[in-house]
């Protein structure tokens, strides 16, 4: 019976030990914030890997040559104090900031810029994103220690935007050289407000504040970071994210499902930040090479048939705006030239009647010359695309089509289904701050020209816009023409503009994001006392 008396004692000791640990954490001077990430990337070297998730921690490890103001979309000095673009748009000269040191103590200079860009362009390194962001870059020349020139083979307007993104953040050439393309991701060295401490795949990324940081760009409010340590953990299952926040495991977490967001929004302990992500909306491309969607009138009818506001509300709650244009970013809001086709099933029916797709049976199914109106949708599995595709199917069935739906389990199968060409509508969208993104989707030879539409006018406009390096208004005007042409031809069914629902413990202050939308500005975060 002795043991029975021991048990309360053990519990007491246990409680004592745990409270004392808790106290020691509470009174320690160093502050730690835990940030919940949503996807576990396969690799996190921004120069070589492509996940948008990696920028959430790493945008604060690296500085870029220029930064983009999130409000105005203007470029502001970063590691480059000033820059000039030659009138032909082929030469960019950067005049670099002096006195900047990498986290390993080495000096940032023109040699470092050259080493970084050559690391990215090295074909053996298989860069998945950064190398393509450099477009037609041919050569990087060191003019002097603090002046560097980039030579292009043709004008490339998105270059500054590319250079403002973390994928082209400046890394220590010594670290790049020491670790090489396979191991550098575990030993990243930049010049930013936070230092990289460690990366344990699928587990966590740890950063610590850089006390030597003295070159904050104007888009940062603080000169130095306030929080000592920031730990990033991965929460891949959406259902677990709000729970992690509410149990105090994380202080900030992105991509909260809308039904959890409702609860967070009214909570007194947590705040909800709906953050607009620039780029393309959730959208479905019509296959213009396959009947019946080869006819513009049919495509227009199919857009009219969808109750987009209702569908967006059903799936995304009150947080997502309905999309009416093929691209959205703070500096490039492409307004539709004419009013976008609204939900109007009657007009949809009339349009289909006009082109011969008439209701021919008692159940209301349409056919033309005894060929039934059949549509095949291919949807990717991510970002609620598959749920949205089901609502689209229901709306199209309501106007008399027979609809089949295929959910591709990943990007590979999606591309495969696209290459087979048996779809009438297929979902794909990418994020980005520069509308040159549209060139890959709408030009005849674009990698993502999944509507398979070939239009010399669109090609001309997109090429011209990509080369218009100096005049932003002229570019905007060209993209607006693209946008109205896309709408005229009803090539795409835009659904909603992307909003990242970020949930935050309200002891966290100062949370705001870069122009790319995904990346928090960690230097400005602080914890309420």
């Amino acid at each position: 019976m002795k043991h029975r008396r021991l048990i309360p004692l053990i519990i007491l000791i246990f409680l004592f030990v745990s409270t004392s640990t808790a106290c020691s954490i509470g009174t320690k001077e160093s502050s730690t914030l835990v940030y919940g990430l949503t996807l576990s990337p396969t690799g996190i070297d921004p120069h070589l890997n492509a996940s948008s998730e990696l920028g959430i921690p790493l945008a604060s490890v690296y500085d870029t040559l220029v930064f983009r103001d999130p409000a105005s979309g203007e470029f502001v000095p970063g590691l480059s104090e000033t820059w000039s673009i030659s009138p032909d748009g082929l030469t960019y000269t950067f005049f670099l900031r002096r006195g900047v040191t990498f986290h390993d103590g080495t000096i940032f200079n023109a040699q470092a810029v050259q080493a970084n860009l050559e690391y990215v362009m090295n074909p053996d390194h298989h860069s998945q994103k950064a190398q393509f962001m450099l477009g037609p870059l041919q050569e990087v020349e060191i003019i002097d220690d603090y002046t560097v020139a980039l030579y292009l083979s043709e004008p490339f307007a998105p270059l500054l935007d590319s250079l403002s993104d973390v994928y082209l953040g400046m890394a220590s050439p010594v670290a790049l050289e020491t670790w090489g393309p396979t191991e550098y991701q575990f030993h990243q060295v930049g010049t930013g407000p936070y230092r990289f401490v460690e990366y344990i795949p699928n587990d966590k990324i740890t950063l610590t504040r850089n006390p030597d940081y003295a070159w904050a760009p104007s888009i940062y409010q603080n000169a130095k970071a306030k929080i000592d340590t920031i730990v990033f953990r991965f929460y891949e299952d959406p259902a677990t994210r709000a729970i992690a926040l509410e149990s105090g495991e994380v202080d900030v977490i992105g991509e909260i499902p809308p039904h959890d967001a409702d609860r967070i929004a009214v909570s007194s302990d947590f705040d909800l930040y709906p953050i607009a992500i620039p780029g393309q909306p959730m959208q479905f491309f019509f296959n213009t090479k396959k009947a019946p969607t080869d006819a513009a009138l049919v495509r227009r009818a199919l857009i009219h048939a969808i109750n987009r506001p209702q569908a967006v509300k059903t799936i995304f709650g009150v947080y997502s705006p309905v999309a009416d244009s093929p691209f959205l970013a703070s500096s490039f809001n492409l307004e539709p030239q004419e009013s976008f086709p609204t939900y109007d099933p009657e007009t949809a029916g009339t349009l289909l009647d006009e082109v011969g797709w008439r209701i021919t049976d008692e159940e209301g199914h349409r056919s033309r010359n005894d060929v039934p109106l059949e549509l095949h949708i291919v949807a990717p599995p991510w970002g609620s695309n598959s749920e949205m595709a089901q609502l689209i199917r229901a709306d199209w069935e309501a106007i008399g089509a027979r609809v089949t739906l295929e959910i591709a389990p990943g990007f590979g199968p999606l591309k495969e289904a696209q290459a087979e060409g048996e779809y009438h509508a297929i979902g794909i969208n990418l994020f980005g701050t520069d509308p040159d993104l549209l060139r890959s989707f709408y030009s005849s030879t674009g990698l993502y020209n999944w509507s398979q539409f070939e239009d010399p006018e669109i090609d001309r406009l997109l090429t011209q816009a990509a080369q218009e390096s100096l005049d932003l208004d002229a570019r905007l005007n060209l993209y607006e023409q693209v946008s109205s042409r896309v709408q005229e031809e009803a090539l795409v069914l835009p659904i909603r503009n992307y909003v990242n629902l970020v949930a935050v413990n309200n002891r966290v202050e100062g949370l705001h994001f870069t122009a790319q939308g995904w990346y928090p500005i960690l230097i400005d975060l602080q914890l309420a006392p």
Partner: protein
Amino acid sequence: MVSHSDRSSIGALTTVGRRFIEGVLTAWTAVSLTFFALRLIAGDPIASLLSQGLASPDQVENLRRSLGLDAPLFVQYLNFLAGFFRGDLGTSLFTGRPVSTVIVEQLPATAQLAFAGLGFALLFGLTLGVISAWKEETPLGQFAASLAGLATALPVAFTGILGLILYRQLLVVIPLLSVVKIRRLFLPALLLGFASAGAIARVVQAGLKETMKGPYILAARARGIEHGFRLLWHALRPALPPVVSLTALEAAFLFAGTVVTETVFSRPGLGRLLVTSILQGDYPIAQGLVVLAAVFYTISHMLADILAFTIDPRLRRVT
């Protein structure tokens, strides 16, 4: 003349040897199936690799050549097998890191979870099995039997979220729990173990009910051995070999079960690695994991055979 103990070790060796050959064949079949199935199902890895990169068609083909993915599928397969027999599992398409390094990095987390889970599975399985056989006619026995059924029926995807929600509510009452960090290992291992306990409980229950009818139980009773002891020792021991075999299967299943558990509980590990590599089309990693699974499956079966020999002398007879 061969002594009894020699004959038994020959029997054991034959079985273990047979298992080994089976294991090699299993590994080869599994890996070959994976090699072709992945390429049929998961599509073009280059498409996945460049899903965020705006490459021109020429750049796409250059990358394909550079990664050796332009060769005919059968040539790629032979190259893979050649590497496989040299002990080289290749490198990740996404990071260029050796597959073996990537797997070894994630292995400890999964092993920890799987072994802790197995411990809970045995604990729950044996307890529920014994109670449901022993107290068959009482409400307690029926409760244990239904709990075992429930354990089999409820997936970790469900119990995991439920566990997390309960844990969150519990934290409000006992904030100290967050210091103990039970959320990272205890809770997932508990739920993973629970999910695997049902099958073990069933086999224990069935085995016990069978052996309880055996003549040695009658003999034990004749010697005046009391109820509880008789049941647990005399009846349980001969009922154990199928439990051991099942546990070996369950151990393999636990490794698979970690796929969901690791995702729900945000733990690192092989399960997460497998899902990511298949979804993203990082074939070399998925293939490496299948090899590992086949090897693990073989080893756990060999161990189960040896253990069964040790527990049940009747199996040692060479026929």
